[in-house]
């Protein structure tokens, strides 16, 4: 039993990765991220000095990306991200990588920004 628990724990640990942070400016209420920055990753945190909160940009396919504001809809705490979702360290709310609530106390989904591809850039529309 304990061996099974240990192996599950070890497999979970192997998923530990630091999520890359990309700094990018806001221009005309948009943020541009080069498609090439997703060459070897599934997601990255987008940060701008003019935004109070980070945005999680997730690659769903070569043509589709999801941009989520990393701010808990319960008490406006910044969120922590892992490979399987986003978590609020303050009150325990959880969200999936689509921004849907998977565990309360938050009841509203995360703010999602529309994205589009343009000349080898992913455009996040704020």
């Amino acid at each position, binding site marked *: 039993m304990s061996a099974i628990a240990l192996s599950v724990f070890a497999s979970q640990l192997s998923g530990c990765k630091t999520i890359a*942070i990309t700094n990018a400016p806001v221009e005309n209420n948009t943020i541009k991220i080069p498609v090439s920055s997703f060459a070897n990753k599934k997601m990255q945190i987008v940060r701008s000095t003019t935004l109070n909160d*980070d945005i999680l940009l997730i690659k769903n396919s070569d043509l589709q990306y999801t941009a989520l504001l990393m*701010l808990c809809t319960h008490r406006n705490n910044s969120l922590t991200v892992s*490979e399987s979702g986003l978590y609020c360290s303050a009150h325990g709310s959880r969200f999936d990588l689509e921004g849907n*609530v998977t565990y309360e106390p938050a*009841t509203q989904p995360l703010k999602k920004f529309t994205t589009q591809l343009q000349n080898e850039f992913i455009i996040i529309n704020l």
Partner: protein
Amino acid sequence: MRIISLSGLLILSSQLLTAQNLSYEDSLQKRLFQDEKKTIISGYGEAKFNYDLRYKTGTANFTRLVVFVGHKFNEKISFFSETEIEDAKVEGGEPGGEIAIEQAYLKFDLNKNMYLQAGLFIPRIGILNENHLPTTFNGNDRTFTEQLLIPSTWRELGVGLYGSCEKFSGLNYSLAILNGLNSSAFENGTGIREGRYEGRDATATNLAITGSLQYFFSDIKLQLSAYYGGSAGLSQREADSLQLNSGIFGTPVALGEFNIQYNKDRFSLRALGTAIQIPDADKINRAYANNTAETLIGGYGEIAFDLLAAKNKKLDLFLRYENFNLNNKIPENGIENGLLNQQYIVTGLTFIPTGGVAIKLDYVFKKTGDPNPALVINPFPQAPQYYNTNSFINIGIGYSF
């Protein structure tokens, strides 16, 4: 969440709709609009019907109603508060009921990964202390371990630093300094619970430090937390007369806690272990004769499975086992009380018909050790027999918005 703007909903709505076609709710989450000032009102509550299967008696109670008021002063400074009414009614001169400020603090955002909070707040210890909304835990009652060992909701006055580690994604930390406890109020049977000041006239000559580490990875959350604080906020003269150690950490109370939570698809698991050490329990007993234990220890484990697997709805079937001993070790001048060695099996259903609403049904089996006749000072000749086991049925509702 209901959001009320101080400057008026119409004005605010028109401003925000002009700006990027976002609702005012969106903007509050987004925090993109630099000059907004917002006041938020929300709340939570719970009520239950309880039936004692051994004594065939029932009670119904509106356990608590809590109103949350928050305000954002600017991009960096916010205010958070929770005011609670317990048991629906408080009347002067009558026992029962409570009106209390559960939290009231200012939050200062230092940067994207770090913030300070100052005032009356709940330190990060255990699972339910910070996160006690009725829609987030199974069963009508909060876990007994986190009521009697970790005295949730445990709030004190102080300053806390909270943050996340960017170099090690998923790692969060907290460190806080708080007022200490009052060992003269400790009661046999409730651990350190009655020694909390909860923001009212706390002695600040004795202090406490508490810290936590949280780590999220994949579907697992781990947390380790600790508390160390003085429990004798007395003047030197008073402390000497009672033969207690005063000072910042005099007559200390140490608490350690570890918990793990796992959520994957329809399955969830949580487990918690905690221990309290009061090395000067003998001195507290000598001073106050309150039969304080030296070591308290306990924990619980819970598994749950969502029977519905529907979007925005849940029907969790759960099973929890709790085991703790509030007098795991007693000092030489203490008296062992077998009633404080307790086990619980709790099972039931939690139905979430929509986010923020819970309907709960649970069965609680309770088992204790034997009472110690030495603790009964004036035995009542017609006292009914004590039963080591009992069970209860609870039906209740809870909400948060």
